[in-house]
């Protein structure tokens, strides 16, 4: 069952009509296949129109779309011999961040990502992709392992943010995130990160201070959720739409600001319409980056990465 966003309603109607035509019995005088083709062309046109100029607020909806491919979908398609590794060796295992060993197009790699879950059960199990300190400490551990065994690191970012809870605070949420950023910046192996959905604040950058940061066309990356920003600055959570515009959280804005390196185009109608296609596009982009970065020596990689982040803030939108 396709889930339609509010602004996709006209498309939902057309697709409903197509579905109806398909189920009509032949021989009642109407040339259904011609009619279907016409409607499908119209659907495509509408998609093109709508998705060519999504507003930031609409992108927020697309980035959070429940049927958008999540980290697990990428793992299943792109990583072979996937061997998830659990635990932070200090307190526990946090399924909001998954990580482990595998092969990506022939290379041995360490892969880490936020997992939001795809149905009620798995969403609860993965805590909607909101990690506790254990998740960030597991990521640190895997960063260190990657460095030790000279394995490139791929990270997939998709989180509303770090989990705001009493237990998370008492186990040092802030310290866990800070050390995670530090561990990523220290790597002497290629490190590529891709924002596949929602890049929520400190919980996102924890695993995204990479050599190359890629972003899907309709993904978002923000210092605070539009809702949170609205409730603080507008004192009204209902102003989230306005906040989403002010925050400059789209992939296009981030590229202009020089905060990400490349945008990966999404198929017509967004990643949630053509999962396979988008997963492959991401795979190709990662492959290209790893090939480029593999030519650089570890110390050089680290120096460039540090230099890149040290420069951030010297340039605005102009």
């Amino acid at each position, binding site marked *: 069952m396709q889930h339609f966003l509010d602004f996709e309603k006209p498309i939902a109607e057309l697709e409903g009509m197509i579905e109806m035509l398909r189920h009509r019995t032949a021989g009642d005088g109407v040339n259904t296949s011609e009619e279907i083709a016409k409607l499908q062309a119209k659907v495509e046109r509408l998609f093109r129109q709508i998705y060519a100029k999504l507003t930031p607020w609409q992108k927020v909806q697309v980035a959070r779309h429940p049927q958008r491919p999540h980290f697990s979908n990428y793992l299943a398609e792109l990583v072979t011999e996937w061997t998830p590794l659990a635990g932070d060796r200090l307190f526990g295992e946090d399924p909001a961040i998954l990580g482990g060993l595998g092969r990506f197009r022939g290379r041995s790699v360490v892969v880490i990502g936020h997992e939001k879950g795809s149905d009620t059960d798995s969403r609860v199990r993965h805590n909607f992709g909101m990690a506790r300190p254990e998740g960030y400490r597991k990521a640190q551990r895997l960063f260190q392992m990657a460095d030790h065994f000279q394995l490139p690191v791929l990270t997939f970012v998709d989180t509303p943010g770090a989990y705001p809870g009493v237990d998370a605070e008492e186990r040092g949420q802030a310290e866990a995130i800070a050390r995670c950023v530090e561990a990523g910046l220290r790597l002497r192996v290629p490190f590529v990160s891709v924002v596949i959905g929602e890049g929520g604040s400190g919980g996102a950058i924890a695993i995204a201070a990479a050599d190359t940061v890629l972003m899907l066309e309709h993904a978002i990356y923000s210092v605070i959720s539009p809702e949170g920003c609205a409730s603080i600055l507008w004192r009204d959570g209902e102003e989230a739409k306005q906040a989403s515009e002010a925050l400059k959280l789209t992939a296009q804005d981030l590229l202009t600001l020089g905060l990400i390196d490349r945008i990966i185009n999404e198929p017509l109608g967004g990643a949630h319409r053509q999962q396979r296609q988008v997963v492959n596009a991401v795979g190709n982009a990662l492959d290209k980056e790893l090939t480029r970065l593999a030519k650089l020596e570890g110390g050089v990689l680290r120096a460039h990465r540090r230099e890149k*982040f040290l420069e951030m803030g010297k340039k605005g939108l102009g």
Partner: protein
Amino acid sequence: MNWLRNFVRPKIQAIVRKKDVPENLWETCSECGQMIFHRELEANLRVCPECGFHMRLHPEQRLKLLFDEGVYKRIELPEVPADPIKFRDKRRYSDRLRDAQNKTGEPDAIVVAHGRIGGINTVIAAFNFDFLGGSMGTAVGEGIVAAARLAVLQESPFVVVTSSGGARMQEGVLSLMQMARTTVAVEEVKEAGLPYIVVLTNPTTGGVTASFAMLGDLAIAEPGAIIGFAGARVIETTIRESLPEGFQRSEYLLEHGMLDLVVQRAELGNTLARVIGILSNRGPVGELVPIPRTETTPPRPD
């Protein structure tokens, strides 16, 4: 003095509630509500004589308190593009920024200076909470980078005194990136083998805590300071959990293993001087040498 406090205070409190009293003559402790005579509060380093709460200290006062004889030299920080993403909520960020600059007389929320602590040349970066809640945008990031580089250049220890609500939303993802940027900056200090010490004061939350503020070789906090990642209100409203007694206070963090020391403001200078002295007094470091191996013949089974 006690008789004065217990006896005279309530009366005075009643009188000074009226608006016509100049604001700067009396101050209310945000913790216990006690009215405190301004001069007494200053003499007590802005620590409430009633409940011991450590009220906010202006960065210049902080520097005076921490550097030997109160002598230091401020450094001018590099300029950054103001209002980099042309942010506007109900008001323009550029206007809010100008207001904060006029109110504080400072270009942004951080002050960097160098001087001596216990005779050892030291760089301090101190936050100004009165400037947009001490929030970290590009200018604060720039301040931390400049301060860290000065420390490396002078081969000095680096002390950061934090007081911040976190990242500055009005600079969007640019402010989030300051987390990575400041992490690199303090890493350079550590790689130079210089002590990096964080003094956490009330309040320190969000992206500041989740970056350089939690990466100190030593983490020292003033008593009763709120230190955390998520704000207490956010936790209460989103998770609907009630908060334990003393939640996110320095003593709570100390108990949970997140801090090295909780130190009274009056003792802070001495403590810093002591630890900086110890950490800077390094003898020669031995090189790693391979243990010489003598050829041995493996025992032969008879």
